[in-house]
């Protein structure tokens, strides 16, 4: 039972964006993925989630091979994500953004929807209530009816996190979730992500902010030029000469 990436490689022309990358995220664990700019962190997220095709290697979710699956297939296998550059539906309200994450959990049939039968209306109400709860979890209830594009950047990130968690994922990949947040907000996010982990969700946290990663992760992978150059506990990572060289230069 884990999200397992083994030996994944992908090259774009001559550039090897991912070389033989292996990592594992267990349910209820928060795993960090750090690395300097251009290390290939976001590319790796795109490879795992089926946005980009994998050249070699496999990705599996709780034993199910999702290597060849599309974005939709990987999402349905239980992997959710946020985007490095927040991608909300900018014309829609905060609530609409979050209910979209819940759409797959509605049970009413197409006929119910088409004829506006009570089953479809019940579904929508239930989903709206659930979305409000999730918004309460991320502290965004009072913004529920605002248009998403009008929010501050940090608030937009929270909405995106709410949407990603709404799909009830087994694993969630958070691509720089606290970028653009101040220390107080980032502190709130630490509590939030811990609560996700307590619910049994495995988290892969892609981050720049070392302080934030150290506060959350028991295990950290360090990526540089498409390769995992170190992995271990925060203490081990900070001692690794390879990591120090990658971050500070030799």
């Amino acid at each position: 039972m884990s999200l397992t990436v083994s030996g994944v490689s992908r090259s774009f022309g001559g550039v090897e964006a991912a070389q033989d990358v292996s990592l594992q995220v267990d349910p209820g664990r928060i795993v960090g993925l750090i690395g300097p700019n251009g290390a290939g962190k976001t590319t790796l997220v795109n490879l795992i989630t089926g946005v980009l095709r994998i050249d070699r290697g496999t990705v599996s979710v709780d034993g199910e091979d999702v290597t060849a699956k599309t974005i939709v297939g990987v999402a349905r296998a239980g992997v959710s994500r946020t985007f490095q550059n927040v991608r909300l539906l900018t014309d829609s309200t905060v609530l609409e953004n979050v209910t979209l994450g819940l759409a797959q959990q509605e049970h009413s049939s197409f006929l119910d929807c088409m004829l506006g039968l009570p089953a479809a209306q019940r579904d929508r109400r239930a989903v709206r209530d659930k979305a409000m709860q999730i918004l309460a979890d991320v502290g965004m209830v009072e913004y529920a009816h605002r248009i998403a594009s009008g929010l501050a950047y940090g608030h937009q990130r929270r909405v995106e996190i709410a949407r990603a968690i709404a799909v009830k994922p087994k694993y969630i990949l958070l691509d720089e979730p606290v970028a653009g947040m101040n220390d107080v907000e980032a502190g709130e996010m630490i509590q939030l992500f811990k609560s996700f982990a307590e619910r049994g969700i495995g988290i892969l946290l892609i981050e720049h902010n070392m302080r934030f990663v150290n506060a959350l992760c028991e295990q950290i992978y360090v990526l540089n030029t498409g390769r995992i150059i170190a992995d271990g506990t925060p203490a081990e990572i900070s001692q690794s000469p390879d990591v120090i060289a990658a971050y500070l230069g030799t």
Partner: protein
Amino acid sequence: MINFFYAYQPLIDFFLLNAGFALSQYIVLRAGVFSIATVGIVSIGAYSAAIVMKSLGLSIWIAAPFSALVGLAVGLLLSVPLARLRGPYQAIATLAFVQIVAAVALYAEPLTGGALGMNDIPKQVSTLGLVFALAFVLYILGSLSRSRIGAIFDALRQDEAVAGSLGISISFHHALAFALSGAIAGLFGALQAGYIYSIEPHQYGFVMLTMTLAAVILGGRRSIWGPVVGAAIMTFLPEIARPLAENRLLLNGLLLVVVIIFLPRGVVDGLIALVRRRRTSAVTWPAESSKEVRT
């Protein structure tokens, strides 16, 4: 009032038909598919209804649902190759489809009557019939809008990668939009055939295509009322502008430019957004200021 209605009845009927065509165009655009196949499917619907009404002597009550089914099937078939295309490429491919349909209608003379078209189609469609058909389509589209399907269409239009990352099937919902659009186009094609006595190929050409597309752009592509209002403008404006004689089309173009600049989401969606913004700012402003007091 009654006199007014009789004087303008044909115009109202044309508006009702145009609103149906616009709704067919609207539903694909709402789901983020840039298909302009509507006119082609309207043509197929009109011809198939005319054929079954004339050769088999069937009534519009059978011909119209039959055409809707034909339109639905054509829409689904189109969705297969078009699933691989996006944006302008979909527009070009569907424009080609419209041209192919027009060419077939022109050359399949034994079936379609060729350039002379089909005449003496029994007139069985009344204003009331058109009102019912439009109300039926609006009811279904309205129900879908309020359900998850409408939310998913809005999401696909704005960012389909996001929808996909939430496990929402992109191809399924695009096919659904095509099927709906095709069924509506087929239905209103049949109603048109059963209304205007005769149909001919060139009627379903570029003019109708731009008119239908303009109705959606003018009205808006999110609310179901957008295309209805757009169709009303496109139908009634030339009548109001009658004194301008042959320069009437200038007014259409001018209006389109003005709307695109000042209400880029269309008249209906633009106004809804305006009202919504005013309302939310009125609600949240005091809430924010009270928060300031607290801290």
